[in-house]
């Protein structure tokens, strides 16, 4: 559906996007995670034709549409993190205006505005001034605006920022609804757990580079794997355990805390079991053996902070 190939974007001497590549399949609810300044907005703006990439291409449905404004506009829709609403326009007029910007007029636009307001639960706010709407409502109105021309791909830039839990829930429901209609939705956020709740797949961007992409299950698994294994053994056997573990290629690091050993283990479940059995085979009394609950936050921090801080310190 969307294929982003080797995008580069430079602001001054700073690479906002550095060889950024990404694939999003049709119908996916794609979460685009990264810390502030990682390049999320830059990527989105390039994809919708608001910014020119220094190098690289964006292929949508097998065509590079960046040079064809109207074709691109028909395919994609962009809802930025700011509202961009006109003062003194009612919600209905606002939608009408954007409908006409897409070449939809009169009765057709009336019908469309009606439907969209219903979709985002704003039917009762039809004649309210856009400025008088709450943040959540504005966000939903902007979403409706993005749907005016029935695009295939929706780019939402931090749609949930600054929303209260109720508004966030409502937004989430709408997005799930849209996703079930077969639209490809790309949502950016700097909070991974938030996206994990609704997305079908997630990509993590760090300093203009995609560092991890996968389905939400894979991400969860990765999160689980990233946490250490806790093994409780007899205190007098700890020396022995260390010797055994040193030979295991999947063990990265072991720290002891009384009789509890925390093992950073890179292998999968099977290899985990093999490690346990090798411990038992060597006569170690294993009192407990379990993996800590992995959190997405930890995973994200692990990926994102792995490089940059050290890099900065060095520089």
């Amino acid at each position, binding site marked *: 559906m969307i294929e982003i190939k080797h995008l580069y974007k430079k602001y001054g001497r700073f690479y906002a996007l550095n060889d950024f590549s990404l694939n999003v399949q049709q119908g996916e609810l794609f979460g685009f995670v990264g810390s502030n300044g990682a390049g999320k907005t830059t990527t989105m703006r390039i994809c919708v034709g608001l910014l020119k990439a220094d190098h690289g291409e964006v292929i949508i449905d097998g065509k590079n549409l960046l040079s064809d404004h109207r074709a691109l506009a028909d395919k994609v829709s962009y809802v930025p993190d700011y509202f961009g609403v006109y003062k003194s326009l009612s919600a209905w007029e606002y939608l009408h205006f954007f409908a006409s910007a897409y070449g939809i007029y009169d009765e057709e636009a009336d019908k469309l505005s009606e439907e969209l307001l219903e979709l985002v639960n704003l039917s009762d706010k039809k004649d309210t001034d856009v400025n008088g709407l709450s943040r959540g409502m504005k966000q939903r109105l902007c979403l409706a605006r993005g749907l005016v021309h029935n695009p295939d791909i929706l780019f939402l830039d931090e749609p949930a920022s600054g929303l209260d839990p109720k508004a966030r829930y409502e937004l989430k429901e709408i997005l799930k609804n849209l996703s079930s209609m077969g639209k490809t939705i790309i949502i950016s956020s700097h909070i991974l757990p938030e996206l994990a709740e609704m997305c079908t797949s997630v990509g993590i961007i760090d300093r203009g580079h995609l560092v*991890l992409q996968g389905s939400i299950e894979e991400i969860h698994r990765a999160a689980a794997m990233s946490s250490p294994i806790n093994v409780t053994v007899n205190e007098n056997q700890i020396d022995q355990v260390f010797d055994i573990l040193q030979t295991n290629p999947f063990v990265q690091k072991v720290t002891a805390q009384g009789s509890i050993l925390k093992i950073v283990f890179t292998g999968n479940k099977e290899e985990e079991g093999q490690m346990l059995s090798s411990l038992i085979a060597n006569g170690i009394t294993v009192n407990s053996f379990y993996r800590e609950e992995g959190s997405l936050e930890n995973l994200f921090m692990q990926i994102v902070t792995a490089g940059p801080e050290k890099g900065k310190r*060095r520089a």
Partner: protein
Amino acid sequence: MSKAETKPKKNKRNAVLYKEMTVDMKKPKIMIIMLLINLFILPITLGFFLGIAIAVFNNACSYRVLAWYLIAMVYTEFFILLLITPAITAGSVSLEKERQTLDVLLTTRMTTWEIIKGKYSSSVLFLSLMVLSTFPLLALVFIYGGISLLQLFYVGVMMFVLIAFVSSFGVFFSSLTKNTIVSVILTYIVLMLYISVTIAMPFTLLGIVKSLNDYLYYDTTYFSNIITKDFINGDFLVMTGTFNPLLMLFDCIGHTIGYDFSDLGSVKGMITICGTDIMPHFTDKNIMVNLWTPISMIEMLLFTFINLRISAFFLNPVKGRNKSEKKAVAAKKPANTASSASAEPVVAESTPAASVNDVPINTVNAAAESANAASTVTETVPSTPAEPVAAESTPAVNESTPVVNESTPIVNESAPITPVAAENVNATPVANENAGTEN
């Protein structure tokens, strides 16, 4: 969610124009401005007609008084327009930028040219409406006659061209700058400069030609063969004045209403006065001079069109993107970022492939590694491959071990294992975390 079955190639109606005409025109602001303008020129009407009334009471009154009433009105309106047009047009696009609505508008089917057209024509229509609203006051001259409807229409057309021309300055700077205030100031300054420069231009150029001619004629040593006093024909240079709106207004009024000082009645008249000396080749019969106002109008409309085209170009966020240029960039790019080239293949292979079927944790590691590699590139530290990073991370791990030492004596044994960890940078955060929990 009804999809438009047949999407037209082009938008039938300009959305921006339509919105501004239907929604923004309802604002009370519009009415207030219109009222103020009429109030501004009302004293002229009152003064003139009071004067006429008094004159008629005493003896008689010339029809020409009404002509002068019209002249006064048109000139006043011209200066009002010169004053308010930048204020109204210079914010048209930059206000959209400030309200952050422009981005959203740019992602729609509308092209920048359409947006500019919509913004521009709505300003022009609004200003025209204001001029039109003063026409009832102008039409008062018909009470006594002396002016034909056609003449008034001609003046109206000229005013429209003036509005169109002056508005294009505002839209141009508005699309160029991000800030409305800057745009307004720039528009005023450039407009003032433009008017003063173009009004001086024909006379300056003709003066230069004249002095050149004099030089050639009187320098008998070198140019003895030149025997005419006007060897270089620079008369056409007077037409540079057609770019000036004030001269156009002067000429237009002179041709329609007339100024009463006979020869000085228009640009043509002025030329007749000083013709013999300054412009020996042009006479008052010259077609170009006679068509001063139409020529001026055409030039100004052309100027306006070019101005708007340039504005649309500046507004386009992805301007200048074409295939050949892209190829040129593509060819240049690898050379520019030679340092980053090392990082490219690693990522290209690892990320997508790993995400599909590999063990997830490996994905994370590979990705993190590539992130490290990328970091060394982006920070532009050329000679820092993965090893130094790892070396640096080892102290961090060692730091954590003494803490562990305090709690349990056996942990010394963990030391031989840590080097294994040191090979992988990824372990560091976890190690730090553990140290933290132990504290």
